């Protein structure tokens, strides 16, 4: 489904963010991306979305080299990828309902689908009562849940989640993780960057660890960190 071949990325100001990453992710896999702050997790996800282009190497998604994709095809690539961003990226002028509906409107889904699916997904993330609020009127965790709802709503093939539980209490985290697992069981590939040690350790899924841009670990049924002694 996703294949990195010797991918490197250095930002314009000279910061090296990823160095020589090679990796295969199968359809339907669930992958945790871990690593210290600034190790390149967000960059990894942005490359998959073609928000940035790799300097070296190739990235293949569903067999296509996304580096060679003509510009006008990029939107169609993104319609197959749902994403939850670290900074939410909600539209501040639109209500919660409209923010989620937007992801469906953009790809031309008819009004009936929108009016059917959006309330359903909002109920699922526990925001049924806030669908008319603007993002500015929500707590941090509530905004994060709106972002999750938006990423889910059009049933994408790949789901990228950057720290989707960073601002959530354990109970809400749990329900978001349950939702991600459910989505994953329907065949969606999930890549999730996280710092939540407890969660990673409990789930026992594939763990890819980055350290200053290099992949230092790729472990099936892994845990958050090997040198746990430090964290206590």
């Amino acid at each position, binding site marked *: 489904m996703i294949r990195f071949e010797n991918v490197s990325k250095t930002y314009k100001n000279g910061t090296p963010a990823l160095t020589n990453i090679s990796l295969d992710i199968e359809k339907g896999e669930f992958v945790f991306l871990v690593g210290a702050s600034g190790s390149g997790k967000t960059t990894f996800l942005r490359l998959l*979305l073609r928000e940035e282009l790799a300097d070296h190497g190739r990235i293949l998604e569903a067999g296509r080299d996304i580096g060679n994709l003509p510009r006008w095809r990029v939107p169609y690539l*993104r*319609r197959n990828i749902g994403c939850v961003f670290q900074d939410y990226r*909600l*539209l501040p*002028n639109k209500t919660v309902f409209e923010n989620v509906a937007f992801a469906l409107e*953009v790809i031309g*889904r*008819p009004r009936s689908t929108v009016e059917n699916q959006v309330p359903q997904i909002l109920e699922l993330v526990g925001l049924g009562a806030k669908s008319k609020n603007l993002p500015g009127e929500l707590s941090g965790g509530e905004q994060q849940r709106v972002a999750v709802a938006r990423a889910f709503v059009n049933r994408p093939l790949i789901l990228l989640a950057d720290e989707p539980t960073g601002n959530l209490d354990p109970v809400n985290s749990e329900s978001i993780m349950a939702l991600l697992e459910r989505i994953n069981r329907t065949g969606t590939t999930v890549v999730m960057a996280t710092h939540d040690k407890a969660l990673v350790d409990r789930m026992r899924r594939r763990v890819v660890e980055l350290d200053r841009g290099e992949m230092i670990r790729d472990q099936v049924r892994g845990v958050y960190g090997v040198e746990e002694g430090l964290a206590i």
Partner: protein
Amino acid sequence: MRVYFSYAFKETFSNLWRNRMMTVAAVLTVAVSLSLVGGSLLLKQSAAQATASWEQSTPVRVWMQPTATPGEISAVRSQLAQLPIVKSCVFTTKQQDFKEARLVISVSDLQFLTVADMPTSFRCTPTVPLDALTVETTFQHQPGVYRVTAPDQQIRAMAHTIRILQVVFLALAAVLLLSASVLILNTIRMAIFTRRREVSVMKLVGATNWFIRVPYITEGFVQGLLGSGVAMLAVWAFHTWYPLHNEFALDTAKVWGTNVVVLVAGVGIGSVGSAIAIRRFLDV
């Protein structure tokens, strides 16, 4: 497709309403600029019309001596006909001049006048008013010519002034059209700037470039339309409340013609301005 049209429509108007302060400012800018353009066009047309009418009413007049021989008269006539700067000439006989004189001279003086006393003359319309001077110098010392009277100094100064004003008005109109475009472009640039985040989100959820662009273009179009609507009202009001007099008066058809120009300019500026702004600043 129907879903998209309703989306673009909704989006355009909700954007206009959400940023209503900015919408009002943009519309006002276009309205002010186009009112000025419209006003300039009106004044230009009016001045052109007045000049044309003066050309008609104040001909160069070549007066023949009462004693001029028919030969001398026909020599002057053929010379006038050949002169390219002279548009047309009419020969007035002693009788005609006498009739005219009776209209302007008080009755008490009339008793001294006889038809024989009257000179004969050519009334000539020069191609442009300023050529009158050339006609004057050419025929002044011709045999049989008594005097040449041209539109006097003031008329000449006036024609000159009007030509300067025409140039100034045209320049004003050009500068104003340019500035209106820059301002619409800027307004839409600002709109895009404040919605950069929104646009980046749209791109990330898979919106195509045209999907993103169209609401901005229609937004600019509507702003241009509203602005030129206001300007058209202003032009009409100007025409109604400050009607120009005498030779300056314009007929309704010309005012409507001006309004059509204003409308086309407004709508064009709105659409083109937003299209350019999107090209330059949206990077979609």
